[in-house]
């Protein structure tokens, strides 16, 4: 499969009263067409900002986003609009991401209007019917308003809106975090079906490791704006190399009485991404941290084939 999206050393800093918040600090990865990259990390690790920077909703401070061979980091005008047709986003909160005044039909029609391919209203409404059918929304909800629907159906509207542009790549920003497990499963199945049907590429951002394992082909673990580890799903779960990934995986509560885990409890809190000092951002919580870790930021390195890790001591720790 050809590489569809390439992100090179992407940086996004936000200016705040006391300095700069390094939301994303030098993240690179490649994503093949039709695959799913899971991005995991805890709140404030920059995973949502990464997704928005790829979309161009937040303009990157540095680095490059290359989509299908074209540099799309700083697009303007018509080319920006063309890019937005190919790359779409599904938001976390299906309540606030839908304008409460609009009913389902006009919500799904909105992107079609922007798109401009469908000149007359009948064509657009036909397409709306088709989209609602695709995401499993019954036609009788056309005149309903978002606040009358449950979280699952609202999220289906969000998905239909993203699909309206007929995108190649969808950034899913915590699309199931606000939902109950039974509804979450419905939406995850829908996303999997759509991918199979349309050959979509996903960047799936979440903090839920079970979900990310279920849906992703490859997983990137982020910590405090930086890439900590990236590998194919199985390899990451079977052989995590970064101490943070190890801690993260062992912290997942497993709904079974028969799973024995050697629990690695991570002490301490996540470091603030505001004006960070050089050095490994995880050093403060890491039991292997040395002088080197505190002085020098580790570079991502491919320790095993396709398994990238940013840790000075990854080799020694894992023998």
């Amino acid at each position, binding site marked *: 499969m050809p590489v569809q999206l390439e992100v090179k050393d992407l940086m996004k800093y936000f200016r705040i009263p006391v300095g700069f918040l390094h939301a994303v600090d030098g993240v690179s990865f490649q994503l093949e067409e039709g695959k799913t990259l899971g991005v995991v990390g805890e709140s404030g690790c920059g995973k949502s900002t990464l997704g928005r920077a790829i*979309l161009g*909703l937040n303009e990157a401070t540095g680095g490059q986003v290359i989509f299908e061979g074209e540099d799309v980091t700083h697009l303007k005008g018509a080319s*920006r*609009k063309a890019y*937005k*047709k190919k790359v*779409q*986003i599904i*938001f976390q*909160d299906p309540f*606030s*991401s*839908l*304008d*409460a*005044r609009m*009913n389902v039909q006009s919500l799904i029609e*909105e*992107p079609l209007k*922007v*798109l401009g391919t469908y000149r007359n209203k009948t064509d657009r409404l036909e397409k709306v019917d088709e989209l609602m059918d695709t995401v499993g929304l019954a036609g*009788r*909800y056309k*005149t*309903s*308003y978002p*606040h*009358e*629907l*449950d979280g699952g*159906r609202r999220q289906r509207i*969000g998905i239909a*809106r993203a699909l309206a*542009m007929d995108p190649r790549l969808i950034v899913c920003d915590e699309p199931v975090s606000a939902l109950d497990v039974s509804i979450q499963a419905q939406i995850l199945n829908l996303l999997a079906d759509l991918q199979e049907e349309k050959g979509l590429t996903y960047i799936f951002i979440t903090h839920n490791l079970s979900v990310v394992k279920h849906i992703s082909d490859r997983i990137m673990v982020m910590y405090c704006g930086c890439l900590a580890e990236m590998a194919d799903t199985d390899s990451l779960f079977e052989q995590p190399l970064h101490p943070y990934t190890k801690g993260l995986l062992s912290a997942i509560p497993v709904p079974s009485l028969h799973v024995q885990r050697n629990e690695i409890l991570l002490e301490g809190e996540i470091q603030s991404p505001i004006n960070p000092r050089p050095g490994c951002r995880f050093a403060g919580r890491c039991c292997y941290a040395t002088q080197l870790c505190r002085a020098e930021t580790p570079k991502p390195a491919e320790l095993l084939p396709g398994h990238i890790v940013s840790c000075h001591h990854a080799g020694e720790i894992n023998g």
Partner: protein
Amino acid sequence: MKRWLETRKLARKGEIRSVGKFSLMVRRFCRNKAAVASLVFILLLILIAVFADVLTPYDYDAQNLSEKLRQPSAAHWFGTDDFGRDILTRVFVGTRVSLLVSILAVGISTVFALVIGSIAGYFGGAVDNVIMRITDIFMALPGMLFAMTVSAALGTGIWNTAIALGFTSIAPIVRQVRASILLLKDQEFIEASKAFGSGNTVIIVRHVIPNAFAPLIVQIALRLGDTIMAISGLSFLGLGVQPPTPEWGNMVSVGKDYMSEFLPLILFPGIFVILTMLAFNLLGDGMRDAMDPRMKR
């Protein structure tokens, strides 16, 4: 939990009949009896204002010195004033003047404030900074003093009073508009629309203005009341609307001189001002509660 319950309840209803957010608001509003009564009263006032000339057999300016300062009677329900003019007629025409001036004033200030406030709120940055510093200056002027100064400079009369009151109340509305736009700007659905590639104009027209509209209506209702009070205050002091044009404030001002022996000239215009103020306040509160049901419980 509460939000969930409400949604769940409506989720079921949605399968039968869909209820827009607006009609939900109307329903909640209709449950508030005081607000509905106020709305009816205000509609009545508007009718009075429109048909002031034909509601009574008298002309508001027809003097009859032999009939001056008469107590209420069958012929003159509210009595007559110091020139023998029918007070009822003058109160009715005064209603027209008050409503007209306040609608003009609020219209002027709202239009200007909307434009300025939207620019400040939506674009932010240096533009916002400059606009906000200027409003700070205007906010440091006591309202009545400022209105009187402008009114004195422009001169009296309906239009000048409307312009004076409109101009002096731009700054506070600019702040409100800006605040609600800032709140809206951070909403995810605006970002969602940007993700489709919508431009600024489309977003402002399709999302920002319609969503800022509802709170603005409440503000307008409350402002109308405040402005009516300000007009009558100015007219009372001899600025604003001047005799012979009747206005509640200038009628009371005349009545003040006959305070010890003749009440109707104070009482009836006074009651009209109080009731009108009450009605606009209750209406504004009712609309706000209807939009934000949390406040009710």
